[in-house]
């Protein structure tokens, strides 16, 4: 149970640091010509009393403190949000999780076009400028990949267990507004959304979701959507699995049947009891995770504020319960208000730890009456196999020595 050396993001750290024994940290500095560059902070600079030295003037772009190093955890296929390093519920845009099927495309916003065709009165093409001129909406909500579970060893952080969830304020035009412009055939029941990445990724989506609350988002947290998140425009389907929120969206084809694309057949389907395979599992069920204390944190005896996030794709989180004795008794956690619909919701619980080894865990309840299940219950419902939409209670072992480890329940 030894923590990984240099965790987290040790690989990145080595590459970014400029080396040399005297280097204490790295900052972005502005040169006399207004260029932003990386600069090493030396030990000598650090011992200077900041009240006795004039600091740099205002800059053209803000930077993170050189002492803070939250990193995403990239693999070949995804990159995870460092949930244990964040506070509150908004994910900084550069720490938003990534999952794509053909890399991140480079798209010229001046050449960007969205085509809507199929069972419509008038097939139309909208430029990015067009999209931005329509009545707009902003909404804060979570986006989560439905393949967001790991749990096979003690040394997993919240980032590694379920870092494929992030929250942003998205701004854009409602798809219903565009539907109104093209005139949807009343017999239409589905639409295909297609991205302009190298996978030209597609998903079929019930037309009702399009009318209800689907957004074509061009902004994220106040600025243009980031390339990794679908620049210059993407779909956001509140509460639905991330893969349906097609990024770099270039085409919407209205139809009366689903298209049975690879991402809704071979992928993003899951085994359930009776040897069946469940398809079109769009909604993300309620989930929560304690992000502090959690691996790799170390705690001390005494008062500890247990913190975490809870969310549900079916509406608001109405309650989060925390257990500090291995699930024997449960306490209601405090929810941070306002509690938003289909959004990460902060919870906290004040706990006085007596220094004995114990297990802490949380479970979320949403407004439909759904309670986040234990691993075993969920596994049974899924016929003994894991897969997509796996949202079990996460249990943390707090050891006598203050080290915190995941209670691993998953098989390899």
């Amino acid at each position: 149970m030894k923590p990984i050396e240099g965790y987290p993001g040790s690989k990145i750290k080595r590459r970014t640091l400029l080396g040399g024994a005297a280097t204490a940290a790295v900052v972005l500095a502005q040169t006399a010509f207004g260029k932003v560059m990386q600069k090493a902070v030396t030990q000598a600079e650090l011992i200077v009393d900041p009240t006795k030295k004039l600091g740099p003037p205002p800059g053209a772009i803000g930077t993170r403190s050189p002492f803070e190093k939250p990193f995403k955890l990239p693999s070949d296929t995804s990159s995870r949000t460092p949930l244990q390093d964040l506070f509150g519920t908004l994910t900084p845009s550069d720490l938003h999780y990534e999952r794509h099927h053909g890399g991140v495309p480079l798209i010229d916003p001046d050449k960007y076009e969205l085509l809507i065709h199929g069972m419509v009165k008038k097939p139309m093409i909208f430029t990015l400028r067009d999209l931005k001129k329509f009545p707009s909406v902003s909404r804060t909500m979570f986006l989560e990949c439905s393949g967001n579970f790991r749990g096979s060893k003690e040394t997993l952080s919240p980032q590694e267990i379920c870092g494929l969830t992030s929250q942003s304020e998205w701004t854009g035009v409602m798809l219903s507004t565009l539907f109104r412009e093209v005139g949807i055939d009343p017999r239409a029941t589905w639409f295909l959304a297609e991205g302009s990445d190298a996978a030209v990724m597609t998903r079929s989506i019930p037309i009702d979701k399009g009318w209800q609350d689907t957004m074509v988002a061009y902004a994220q947290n106040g600025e243009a959507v980031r390339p990794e998140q679908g620049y210059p425009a993407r779909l956001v389907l509140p509460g639905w699995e991330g893969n349906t929120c097609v990024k770099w969206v270039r085409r919407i084809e209205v139809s009366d049947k689903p298209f049975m694309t690879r991402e809704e057949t071979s992928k993003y389907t899951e085994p359930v009891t009776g040897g069946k395979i469940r398809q079109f599992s769009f909604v993300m069920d309620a989930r929560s995770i304690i992000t502090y204390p959690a691996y790799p944190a170390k705690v001390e005896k005494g008062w500890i504020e247990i913190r975490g996030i809870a969310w549900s794709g079916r509406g608001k989180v109405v309650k989060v319960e925390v257990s500090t004795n291995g699930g024997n008794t449960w306490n209601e956690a405090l929810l941070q208000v306002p509690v938003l619909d289909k959004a990460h919701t902060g919870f906290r619980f004040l706990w006085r730890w007596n220094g004995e080894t114990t297990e802490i865990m949380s479970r979320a309840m949403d407004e439909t009456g759904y309670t986040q299940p234990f691993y075993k219950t969920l596994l049974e419902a899924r016929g003994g196999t894991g897969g997509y939409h796996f949202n079990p209670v996460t249990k943390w072992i707090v050891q006598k020595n203050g080290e915190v480890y995941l209670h691993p329940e998953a098989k390899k």
Partner: protein
Amino acid sequence: MWIVRLFFILMVLFVYTGCDKLNSDPSEFAGSYDSSVWPATFGLGRVALAREIDSLNIDVRPDGEGLPEGSGTVLQGKHIYIAKCAICHGHTGTEGPYAKLVGAFYESDSIQRGEKTIGNYWPYASTLYDYINRAMPYNNPGTLTSEEVYSITAFLLYRNNIIDSTIVMDARTLPQVIMPAQKLFINDDRTGGSEIR
């Protein structure tokens, strides 16, 4: 007097509708932009030309709609697969390094048997054409001709024990292929509430 009464009624109505909006959940609130006062059209965007639609409309559906002209054979497919796909999916389609593509369907244990493959998991043959055409080869997507895609599709279906080696794949034969795993697929039945599914 009646004017006062009308005013009062209007006030009550106003207050009620106002409260209603504030109490509704945010999704309704966001969607409840009162579009009844919107113009019939905002006059943004332009009509798409048939040519423009055709150049993007590459999807292929289970009923065969969207399949292009042309055809392909298992034998041709084998050669193309070895040349363009084997480096990532293995010569036999089973050894990787990326996605395992070949593995037959077994009635007894179907999806429980190791990794998902085209043979034991894919519910529609049209998806193969559609996906290979849009996304493969991974490092060189969108470069295959329709003949090549038909041929590789035929080859992969053959290798997965789904068609025999003599069947020619085209817009007529491909939609007729029935995938063994299709019968395992059910629609999402989760609805929230207390039951865990």
